[in-house]
């Protein structure tokens, strides 16, 4: 039997009417996208999980303010990027105060169905992304991980397209330096 696809508009309307299971469907639908954004920004750590939860809790709280002039995915990504940048600022303050180690960032989890090589690749990519400045990181995550166009990336970050392009070029260059051992093999 063919499963009917429920649109975001329907899910939002049902959530507004008090149907919590509809909101759970939104969470399940957008978890992969938001996980890619938040984990790309913060690394695979407890803080990323917390920020991920906060993204959806905020959406639920302010669902009435969502006007659907942007897609739900873009709206959620915008929240995710803003909350991740706030978390990075907090992290920086903590590091300045306590010369924090990056234990939290290294808190990686193993999924049973992932191969060792895939896991290593993920770790290396994440570590390399974590070395980038916040501005470069957000552009790179949105463009290369989430797959947004440069115009969409500019819109989400509220910066000109030209800035997105120059930041991407710089981020790419820096990332390439970190990832040399792997992509030389690939090429």
């Amino acid at each position, binding site marked *: 039997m063919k499963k009917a696809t429920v649109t975001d508009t329907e899910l939002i309307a049902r959530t507004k009417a008090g149907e919590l299971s509809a909101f759970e469907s939104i969470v399940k639908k957008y978890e992969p996208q938001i996980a890619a954004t938040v984990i790309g920004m913060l690394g695979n750590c407890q803080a990323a999980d917390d920020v991920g939860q906060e993204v959806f*809790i905020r959406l639920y709280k302010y669902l009435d303010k969502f006007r659907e002039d942007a897609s739900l995915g873009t709206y959620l990504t915008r929240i995710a990027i803003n909350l991740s940048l706030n978390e990075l600022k907090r992290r920086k303050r903590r590091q300045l105060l306590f010369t924090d180690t990056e234990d939290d960032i290294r808190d990686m989890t193993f999924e049973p169905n992932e191969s060792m090589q895939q896991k290593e*690749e993920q770790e290396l990519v994440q570590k390399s992304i974590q070395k980038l400045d916040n501005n470069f990181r957000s552009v790179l995550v949105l463009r290369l991980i989430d797959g947004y166009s440069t115009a969409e990336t500019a819109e989400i970050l509220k910066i000109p397209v030209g800035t997105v392009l120059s930041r991407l070029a710089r981020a790419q260059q820096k990332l390439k330096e970190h990832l040399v051992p792997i992509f030389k093999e690939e090429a």
Partner: protein
Amino acid sequence: MKREFQELLNRSFDAELTPDENKKLETALQASPELQAEKQQILAMRNLVGRGAVRSFRPFFSARVMNQIKAGKEQRTDFIASLLWSFRLIGAVAAIAIAVLLTNNIIKAGSIAPDDLLAMQKLTLEETLEIEFLPLEEL
């Protein structure tokens, strides 16, 4: 490798080049093995970054989000309930205090006339308008 071609190459992945720029880049790519290698490296890196993304939070993520939302809702309901309870309590205490005062006034006055109930002093219109003027010397 010329900086101009490097920039064109970078831009070609994320923006549309003009036909002129495209032609320039193509010619440069054909002429420079170094630029070709650079293109391959960028492609490999972009693939790797896309592939390397983690696309799920820890297990039972949606359940955790829903629990938090439910807990938040319950908390709000609890707050409203406790607010209502407080108002009821304040109301009851105020009603008892008013009853005690009224009873006290009735006992003191020995009547249940409205003025006696509210312990209002009985004044005539003249008494209310009576103003004592002090002699000028005393001022």
